């Protein structure tokens, strides 16, 4: 597959850009934040996204999706990044659907992927337990009791926690933190006895929360895949998730850069526009070059998912590490080049640096993925 967008993809990109700029812009994110929205996104806008087929964009047609693949979903996430659009695209469409696709039985896929495609169900992965992404360190325990499992432990940074109907909880049915064997994935409905959902206020104004599980009893049928054998599928789903987040960071960084470049042509000091100063011009040119390079690795990684390439881990860590690096540089420069106005809450540029750091952190930041990239390269 050539590293270019085809006609269908270009049209999708155009229509997504238009829709999100009108319905899910930075101004809408600010309004959601200021209104204290618990769900963190607009249900009306999400409903429209579902009607356009976005909820099932990467889901195969057999399970009610559009079958556009991850390159298609990546285009949506890139545009969502440009507009900082709040929606369950990340929690449900990118992460949960990928994990179900990796681990679920045919029956589970039919049921859950169809429910995601139709917009009937929101699902979210509950994985992280400490301040850093460390999936192998998972300690939340699940003990078999008769035909049930009983889950005990805590999860944090669960996306769209307030809105999710069902959580996919990663738990340990065997082994010790650090072991690949013994990790399992359980479907836990939001209303289950013993599950407490705690909303947390995060820097990006998006809805995330913590889960507290005390004696949560679920039937063995709620296992996604085999007991104790979730690691491989989880790893692949996390690779896909990181590639999707890289696409979001690409859109976010491109937009932050373009806004900054426009400001350089508008702001006057010393009797001329500040964009005429070479000290700023070269930094802008370097960022532009970095963004062009970043675009290539994101596209290559999305294609790797759609082509079912075996070296997905390398592509995922390369894309995520690079986009973390570029997003950090561009958002920091965006604030600096906007000067005092960039420090105010009134100006929108601050929303970009806040969401950037959250998307960077999710499922492993720059340091995590650069280290993994070196390991995968054998050194």
């Amino acid at each position, binding site marked *: 597959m*050539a*590293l*270019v967008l085809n006609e269908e993809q270009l049209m999708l990109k155009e229509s997504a850009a238009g829709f999100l700029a009108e319905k899910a812009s930075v101004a809408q994110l600010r309004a959601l934040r200021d209104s204290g929205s618990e769900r963190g996104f607009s249900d009306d806008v999400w409903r429209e996204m579902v009607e356009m087929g976005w909820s099932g964009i990467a889901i195969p047609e057999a399970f009610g999706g559009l079958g556009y693949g991850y390159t298609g979903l990546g285009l949506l996430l890139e545009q969502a990044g440009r507009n900082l659009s709040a929606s369950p695209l990340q929690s449900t469409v990118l992460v949960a659907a990928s994990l179900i696709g990796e681990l679920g039985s045919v029956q589970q896929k039919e049921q859950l992927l169809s429910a995601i495609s139709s917009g009937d169900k929101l699902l979210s992965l509950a994985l992280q337990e400490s301040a850093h992404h460390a999936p192998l360190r998972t300690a939340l325990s699940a003990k078999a009791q008769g035909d049930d499992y009983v889950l005990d432990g805590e999860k944090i940074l669960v996306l769209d926690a307030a809105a999710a109907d069902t959580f996919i909880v990663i738990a340990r049915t065997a082994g010790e933190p650090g072991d690949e064997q013994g990790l399992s994935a359980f479907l836990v409905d939001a209303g289950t006895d013993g599950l407490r959902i705690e909303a947390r206020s995060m820097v990006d104004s998006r809805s995330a929360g913590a889960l507290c599980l005390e004696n949560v009893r679920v039937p063995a049928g709620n296992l996604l895949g085999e007991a104790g054998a979730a690691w491989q599928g989880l790893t692949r789903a996390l690779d896909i998730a990181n590639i999707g987040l890289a696409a979001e960071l690409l859109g976010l960084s491109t937009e932050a850069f373009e806004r900054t*470049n426009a400001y*350089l*042509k508008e702001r006057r000091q010393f009797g*001329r*526009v500040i*964009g*005429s*100063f*070479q000290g*700023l*011009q*070269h930094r*802008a*040119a*370097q960022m*532009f*070059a970095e963004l*062009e*390079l*970043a*675009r*290539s*690795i994101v*596209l*290559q990684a999305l294609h790797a998912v759609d082509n079912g390439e075996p070296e997905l881990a390398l592509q995922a860590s*390369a894309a995520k*590490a*690079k986009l973390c690096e570029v997003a950090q540089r561009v958002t920091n420069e965006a604030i600096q080049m906007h000067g005092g106005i960039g420090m105010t809450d009134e100006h929108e540029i601050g929303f970009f640096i806040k969401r950037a750091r959250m998307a960077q952190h999710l499922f492993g930041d720059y340091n995590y993925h*650069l*280290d993994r*990239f*070196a*390991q995968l*390269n*054998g*050194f």
Partner: protein
Amino acid sequence: MSDLEQFRQDTRAWLEENCPESMRVPVRGFEDLYSGGRNPEIAHPDQKLWCDRMAERGWTVPHWPKAYGGGGLSNEEVKVLSQEMSRIGARRALESFGISMLGPALLQFGSEEQKLDHLPKIVRGEIRWCQGYSEPNAGSDLASLATKAEDKGDHYVINGQKIWTSYADKADWIFCLVRTDNSGSKHEGISFVLFDMDQPGVTVRPIKLISGNSPFCETFFDNAIADKKNLVGEAGNGWTIAKYLLTHEREMISGFGAAPKQSVGQLALETVGSDASGRLANSALRQNIAQYQLDTMVFGATMARVGDEAKAGQGLGAASSIFKYYGTELNKRRNELNLAVRGEQALGWEGEVYHGGNLSRDWLRSKGNSIEGGTSEVQLNIIAKRVLGLPDA
């Protein structure tokens, strides 16, 4: 069997028969590259034989039209030829500025007579070319060049000086930017002429670099003569050709940024060692190498993407400037890491134990990558102004 498969089999058989064993061993360095010319530098007697055999089929420049001595091969056939050569480790038979620089310019801007006159000699490696661009006072600001060409009816008389002329001391002819008119702006009045270096009015003096080598020269013109039939394009339109070739040159130089065969990380495992978990023993070095390899991978993806976009008729603005800037910076990083990874071995200057100081000399030579063909700073200016639309000071 498809035509292409037939071509592959024929090519394989021909290469097996005609490529000398000595030309199937990897090149050790620049000294093993064959560039032809009236007085060719020969590291091995088979070099000329190999070049002559390949040139007879036009395969030294397989993609040029047969009418000009080239192989007349399609893109697919060129790829097959290159794959079959790689298969047996065959060296490129001929590498020259004639092939990489002048040829493309003549194909684009030259007259039919000029193409017929010069291209076949490039294919056969008979004439070696050099490029006369920079002057002592026209480096980054190339358009301010002052070497003067006076119109004498059927020829030009040329006076002035060029500098950084690559391999001028080994070249037979020069393609040269000269000023034929002073009346307009500095970009006007520049002309692109070709002339023989073997004449009394031309003097060449090699420049010794920090690497100890002398790939560049100063070239002096004192009433040198250029026949008017060797003016390429129209008089005063040379800047267009110069820009075309600079773009071409940038893409060539940025190719230095491609990933090396053995990864730096693998090499470091051998020289620095690993800890119990298999990680490189020095974590600071490990991070530096990981960052470099990541950027190399991303650069490779970008080369592929821009190639695909060009085929699809889409284009990245100022792509050559991005490539030149990024590729040369990457190559400098690779050389610095080479020094870090090999330690004392990379600091030797002469002698067998240091392979003649190859590593230290390559490292020093790489510093010029971000200067020649337009400095990194000039590339950033081009991106800022032409792509980002930022105004002049």
